[in-house]
Every structure is written in structure tokens, then in C-alpha cells.
């Protein structure tokens, strides 16, 4: 019995103090891979907690981009010369990495674009314009990023379709019963965020997809805040389109991915015309290229795609499940530390949520919080987070947000907590 008690005691201790848990990842070692982290801001060591806005890049990604320009800069799918061949191989290898990362059926379903916003715009302009008519209904949610609101609003205005919104509760969870009520035979498209950039909520996209498919609607999932935090399997979700941005997955800016079901992509008209998306061109007629090139007109962001491929390698080597566990533990610690501070309130407390802590401090505007933290070397986001309807729901003009990345550690959280305390005290 005493042995059992001792074991119980030990377990409780480790639960209470995350520092004693055997680390899944060697964060000290990982931090060495990210050169940007090792600098001072306003004389203080940088604490980077703005990962939901963009993530830092490991050396392997920076090197891959530099290597492309130093050793084999060349256009792809064009020349027969060696450099062009090498560039094409690396670019297409990146596509394969994305395919495996999302568990897509085929590389034909992986389209390189500028980012998530462009992916939503592509689907709206191609699938949307050909299939959505006046009176049809498009469903989005109350917690969407502006990039998953505005394109659908534009389509609704142009076609006469109706935009419907899944409401959420005060924890930041979608009201699934309301969603079921919104679905009907007029519903043609559902576009929802996988994980909210403001609230951290992880939405039940598999269930949403299943319900939408029952009425024959197609489903797009915005994965900009998902792929860097947990395993995403597009076949398991069952959705029709999935999008994410490279720069939020430790890759470069200006590159992102649209995944779409092959049969849908084949049926969709091209969006932009130009080089690479054609097989033959005469003044009378153009024959379009097959997938995925049909949607990649012009010289793409070659170095960006290659860099993204290396970012996926980096994340895969660490293990996305390990990253998820590390971030989850760190988030719990952050939530506990921040909520101990007088005047701090958390916005977004869904049962299933990621490593995003959006908050208010009584009597202190987020913009002032941001400046005070910046002077302490701490980078957080302040503002409306490109989710003004979320601000409206919670009745705030703006929020402060600390968001965790794979390289953050317990010291980062302690520093941030200390600075938030200072800000709260300063204005009280």
C-alpha cells in the first residue's frame, strides 16, 4: 500500500510540475536550429510568442533556399539543361512531401499557391463560380479568419447566393445543432477553419464534413493553424479541399498549398492563364495542362516550395505527435501562469483547443500591452487578429495573443507572465 501511495504521489507531482516530465523533445537542441531566436530585442533576450502569425525558420529551410539560388537557380518544367532538371526534381519532391504530409491520394491533388488566402480565392473563383448559383447557400463559421469570409461574401454578392454563419458559444465552440439546422438542399458549400487563430478552438471538421456531404455540399477546410500543431489526414477528414500556408509551418512566406479531390480539380476550370498551365496554344484554341499544373500558371515560387519541403522534413523528423504533446503541455503551463495574474481574462476556452492564449487585461488596451511586452523583448500579437466577427462576439475592440511554437520553452512563458504582470500593474 505504501508503495502504491508513493507512486500516486509521484504521479501527482509530475502532473503539477511539467518541468519534471521527461521531455519528448530536446528543446535546447531544437532552439539551436533557429538562428532568429538567438538575439536581443531592446536589450532583452527575444521571447517569440507570435507563432500563430508566423513561425521562425530552421537552418535547414534557410539553407535549402540559399542552396537553390547559389547552386541550381533555374526555371522548372522548361529547360532540358541540368540546372532546370535539378530545380524541377526538387520542386516536385516538395510536392511529394506535401502529399505524404497530408496523406493525399496523389501529387496531382497538391497545388502550390501563395498561401491559404490564395487557396480560398482559387476555390471560390473556380469551383464556386461554376457550381454556385443564385439562391444557393454557402456556410462559414463565426470564428473564420477574414480570408475565409471575404471571398465567399464576394461570391455571394456576384452570384446572388446566400452566406450563412454557424454561430459559436462563449467558450468559442461551434454550435453543431445550429449547423445541422442550417444545412438543407440549397447548401452547396461549407468552408470552415480547422483551428481558430484567435480562440485556438479545434473544430470537428470530420463531423462537419460528414453532415455537409449528407446534403450534397462540398467542404473546404482552412488548415492554416492546424498542420503545424497536429496530424492532418485529408482522407480521414473526408473533406473536398484543404489549404495551409508554408510560413506558419516553419517554411518560407509566399508559398502555400491547396489540396483538392482529383475529380473535382479535373472538372474545375483553370483560374489564371499563362505559362506552365497549357499543353498547346494557338490563337484559336488553348489546350490546358493536366493536374496540378493547370492551376500553377507562370513561374511559381520555386525556392519557396523547396523550402516548404524542407520544413516538412524538419517537422516530420521531430514527429508531429511529439510537437503536439510538447505544445499542449506548455500551453497548460501558460494558461495557469497567465490566469494567476490579476485582471487577466482568457478569451476562447473550448474543450478542444490548441496552444493559443488570447486575453484581455482589465483597464489595459492590447496595444499598450504589446508595446510594454516588446520593450521586454517579448513578441506577441495585439489587435483584431483578422477575425473582427470574433471581436464582436466577445464585445472587445482587440485582444492580445500569445501563441506557442515547437521551440518555445517554460522560460519563455515565465518571462511573458512577468511582463504581463508588469503591464497590468503599471496601468492599474
Amino acid at each position, binding site marked *: 500500500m505504501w508503495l502504491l501511495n508513493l507512486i500516486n504521489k509521484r504521479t501527482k507531482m509530475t502532473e503539477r510540475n511539467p518541468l519534471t516530465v521527461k521531455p519528448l523533445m530536446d528543446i535546447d537542441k531544437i532552439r539551436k536550429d533557429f538562428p532568429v531566436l538567438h538575439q536581443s530585442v*531592446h536589450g532583452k533576450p527575444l521571447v517569440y510568442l507570435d507563432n500563430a502569425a508566423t513561425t521562425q525558420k530552421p537552418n535547414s529551410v534557410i539553407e535549402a533556399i540559399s542552396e537553390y539560388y547559389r547552386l541550381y537557380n533555374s526555371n522548372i518544367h522548361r529547360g532540358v539543361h541540368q540546372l532546370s532538371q535539378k530545380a524541377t526534381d526538387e520542386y516536385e519532391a516538395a510536392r511529394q512531401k506535401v502529399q505524404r504530409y497530408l496523406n493525399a491520394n496523389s501529387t496531382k491533388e497538391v497545388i502550390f499557391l501563395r498561401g491559404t488566402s490564395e487557396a480560398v480565392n482559387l476555390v471560390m473563383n473556380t469551383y464556386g463560380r461554376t457550381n454556385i448559383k443564385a439562391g444557393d447557400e454557402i456556410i462559414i463559421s463565426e470564428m473564420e479568419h477574414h480570408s475565409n469570409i471575404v471571398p465567399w461574401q464576394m461570391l455571394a454578392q456576384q452570384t446572388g447566393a446566400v452566406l450563412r454563419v454557424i454561430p459559436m458559444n462563449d467558450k468559442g465552440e461551434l454550435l453543431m445543432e445550429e449547423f445541422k439546422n442550417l444545412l438543407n438542399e440549397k447548401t452547396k458549400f461549407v468552408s470552415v477553419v480547422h483551428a481558430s487563430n484567435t480562440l485556438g478552438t479545434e473544430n470537428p471538421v470530420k463531423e462537419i464534413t460528414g453532415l455537409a456531404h449528407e446534403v450534397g455540399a462540398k467542404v473546404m477546410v482552412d488548415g492554416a493553424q492546424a498542420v503545424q500543431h497536429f496530424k492532418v489526414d485529408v482522407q480521414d477528414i473526408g473533406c473536398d479541399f484543404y489549404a495551409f500556408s508554408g510560413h506558419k509551418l516553419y517554411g518560407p512566406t509566399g508559398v502555400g498549398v491547396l489540396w483538392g479531390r482529383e475529380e473535382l480539380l479535373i472538372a474545375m476550370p483553370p483560374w489564371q492563364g499563362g505559362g506552365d498551365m497549357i499543353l498547346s496554344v494557338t490563337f484559336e484554341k488553348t489546350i490546358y495542362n493536366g493536374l496540378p499544373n493547370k492551376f500553377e500558371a507562370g513561374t511559381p515560387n520555386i525556392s519557396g516550395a523547396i523550402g516548404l519541403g524542407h520544413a516538412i522534413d524538419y517537422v516530420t523528423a521531430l514527429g508531429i505527435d511529439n510537437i503536439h504533446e510538447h505544445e499542449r503541455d506548455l500551453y497548460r503551463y501558460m494558461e495557469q501562469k497567465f490566469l494567476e495574474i490579476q485582471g487577466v481574462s482568457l478569451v476562447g476556452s473550448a474543450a478542444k483547443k490548441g496552444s493559443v492564449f488570447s486575453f484581455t487585461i482589465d*483597464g*489595459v*488596451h*492590447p*496595444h*499598450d500591452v504589446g*508595446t*510594454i511586452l516588446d*520593450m521586454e523583448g517579448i513578441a506577441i500579437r*495585439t*489587435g*483584431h487578429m483578422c477575425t473582427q466577427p470574433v*471581436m464582436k462576439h466577445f464585445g472587445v*475592440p*482587440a485582444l492580445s495573443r500569445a501563441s506557442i511554437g515547437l521551440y518555445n520553452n517554460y522560460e519563455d512563458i515565465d518571462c511573458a507572465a512577468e511582463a504581463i504582470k*508588469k503591464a497590468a500593474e*503599471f*496601468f492599474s
Partner: protein
Amino acid sequence: MNEELKELYQQVIIDHNKNPRNFRKIELPSHHSEGFNPLCGDHVYIYLDVANGVIRDISFEGNGCAISKSSASIMTAELKGKTLEEAEVLFQKFHELVTGKLTDEEEIEKLGKLSIFQGVRDFPVRVKCASLPWHTLHAALHDQQTAVSTE
């Protein structure tokens, strides 16, 4: 709290943030305008009662950070009773002050209470916070009916 921050958030600014002056609406204003900063969500309404070229009353409403709120508060306190010409001069001077273009100490001193916003020049991203109420005032006096945006 380091020196730069103390310079930015002077006690007067903290005080005006907590207890803003002229924080109300003027019913039937002669001039009014709305300004917002889409970057941070700051939103300000300026109301004026102008007669014979003199600002008889001026007030503001809205929400924003400590810098923008105190700037609006101090602006209204300073401009009450001033002529439109004097307000125009102060608008220019204030802009020069927060952007670091006004360096002459004597000139700065002449600005009186407004001079406490001198610290803003060391925080380029906060210049818009301090100048938003002034731009909104300018729009109100020049009869710009559309909302002023800092972007």
C-alpha cells in the same frame, strides 16, 4: 519599467487614459467625424461646436489604447476656446512633434501639455495612436464625412 517606456507613458498620459476629459457626445454638433485604426481597432469620434471661428466646445467618444485615448482627451482640453486658425497650427505642430520633426526645445515647450507626447517619436508604430484624434479633428473641421482611417 525602462526610461523610454516611462517617457512614453508619462503620469499625465496614464491619468488622462483613466479619467478622460470631455468624454461625451455633443448633441447637434456643428462638426463631427469618425476615425479608426484598422491595425489595432482604435475607434474615435470627435464632436465640435464651432461659432464665429471659435471652438466653443469639443468632445470625443470611442475606445482605444492609452496613447490614443489620452491624446484625444488632452487635445479636447487644449483646443476648447481656441480659434480654428490656432487649432490648425497645433495640428501641424503636433504632427511634427510625434514624428520627431520638431526638435527645437523652445518650440516644443510652447506646446505646453501637448509636449508630453514627445516620447511617442521613439515608438514609430505608436505614432498613429497619438495622431488619430488629431486627424479625425482635421477631417471634422474640413467636412470630410467619410471615416478617417490611419491605413
